[in-house]
């Protein structure tokens, strides 16, 4: 479906023969649609797609977040105001064959129960991290895009301003402190480009997850949607 779709959109080749070529190399001829005998699998296109769809080192970086986390969330409504501090829990897992990190957060915000979840991925073509986020404090799907290193990822989120309905920008910085500690910092980006740090989450890997999980597991075998 989407993959097939991309093939058509992208290469003007027949998706079926490409898929067939990839999935069943020994059956290429049989699988190629009779209706389009001129269409031959294109080895270069197949290889390009494989490269595009195969999780790589950036997905392993994301996979380091898999597991349960205790969160200490600090929020500033105003740079001068006293911050609000709350506890939360984050549960993360790799899904769809190690391609995306699902994060689910539960805690409170401004004294109210708060729940949210989202996905982070890495687009092998654009070489950018991509994210989506939904929560109980809004009806928007917030998209983000960014780049980084194994130790630090910076994402720019486009959010809906609840008052004007327009968009606001926020920067999220994800940093590893050590193997079991991470820090997510959020900055509102004002219209004039000034940044205001309004939230910080310190994530500590929950003890229940077992002994220090030092290195990134590859796509966990338990990923429920793995191929």
């Amino acid at each position, binding site marked *: *479906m*989407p*993959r*097939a*779709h*991309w*093939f*058509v*959109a*992208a290469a*003007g080749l027949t998706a*079926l023969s490409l*898929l067939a070529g990839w*999935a*069943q190399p020994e059956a290429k001829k049989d699988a190629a*649609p009779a*209706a*389009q005998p001129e269409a031959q699998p294109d080895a270069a296109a197949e290889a390009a797609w494989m490269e*595009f*769809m195969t*999780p790589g080192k950036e*997905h392993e970086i994301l996979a380091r977040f898999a597991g349960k986390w205790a969160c200490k969330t600090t929020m500033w409504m105003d740079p001068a105001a006293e911050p609000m501090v709350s506890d939360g*829990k*984050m*549960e993360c897992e790799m*899904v*769809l*064959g190690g*391609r*995306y990190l699902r994060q*689910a*957060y*539960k805690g409170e915000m401004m004294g109210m129960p708060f*729940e*949210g*979840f989202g*996905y982070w*991925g890495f*687009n092998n*073509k*654009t070489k950018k991290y*991509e*994210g*989506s986020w*939904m*929560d*109980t404090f809004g*009806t*928007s*799907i917030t*998209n983000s895009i960014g780049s980084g290193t194994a130790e630090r990822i910076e994402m720019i989120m486009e959010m*809906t*301003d*609840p*008052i*004007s*309905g327009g968009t606001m920008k926020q920067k999220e910085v994800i940093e590893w402190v050590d193997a079991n500690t991470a820090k997510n910092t959020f900055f509102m980006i004002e219209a004039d480009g000034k940044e205001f740090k309004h939230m910080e989450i310190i994530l500590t890997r929950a003890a229940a997850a077992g002994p220090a999980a030092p290195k990134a597991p590859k796509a966990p075998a338990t990923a429920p*949607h*793995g*191929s």
Partner: protein
Amino acid sequence: MKTCSIIVATLAALAAPAFGQTENPAQQLQNKAKEAVHTVTQEVNKAVNNAQPEGENPMDAWKKFNQPGKEHLFLTKNMVGEWTCNTKFWMAPNTDAVSSTATARFSPAMNGRFVMQEHNGEFMGNKFRGLGFCGYNNGAKCFESFWIDNESTLMLMSTGTQQADGSIEWKGTYTDPMSGEKKTSRSVTRFPADNTIVYEMYDNTSDGTEFKSLEVTYTRIANSKTTNIQTDATPVTDPHTPATGK
């Protein structure tokens, strides 16, 4: 504030004739009336432009933004449940479709704000797994969706508008995984009957002619146990359930 400005402007305009000169009184009145209309219009426009930040309590605005509404109910009612899917795929215009079957489960997420689709199918002997989400953004006043699957590393984001017949037309931009070019996608979700959804995806030939490349006909076989949009916070069977916390 708004009312005040209008009153001030009107009074100013009406007071002006008192300082009138020796012109034709009728002409004077006409000019003053024009001027008054102009002034009041300007004031009204100013007031309207300022109305949102000044007039609306941010908390009220946020509640409106956050509260699921009729569009969320529409998605929940028409989508949540267990479905079987018949998929037809066209590689080019005027060719025979390639058919396959799949199953899908749609469940509510975040207390009725979003609907999640878990799609399980097969394509050329491979398991195909997809996750889709859609919702309605009360602030931007449009439907929003994104899709991820196990055959790519891309997130496809779209925004949608609802047509008079209830169908939702989705548009998005993405980077072509093969060429690296920016492209736009167009698809439509139709609701022809209570237990039927038809999802259509369109594509363009190299000369720019649009054709239907995908059609998925969903048939609802059961309502999900989680159809009540207030109870989705604690489902137990779904591997994508948010952390249970607390």
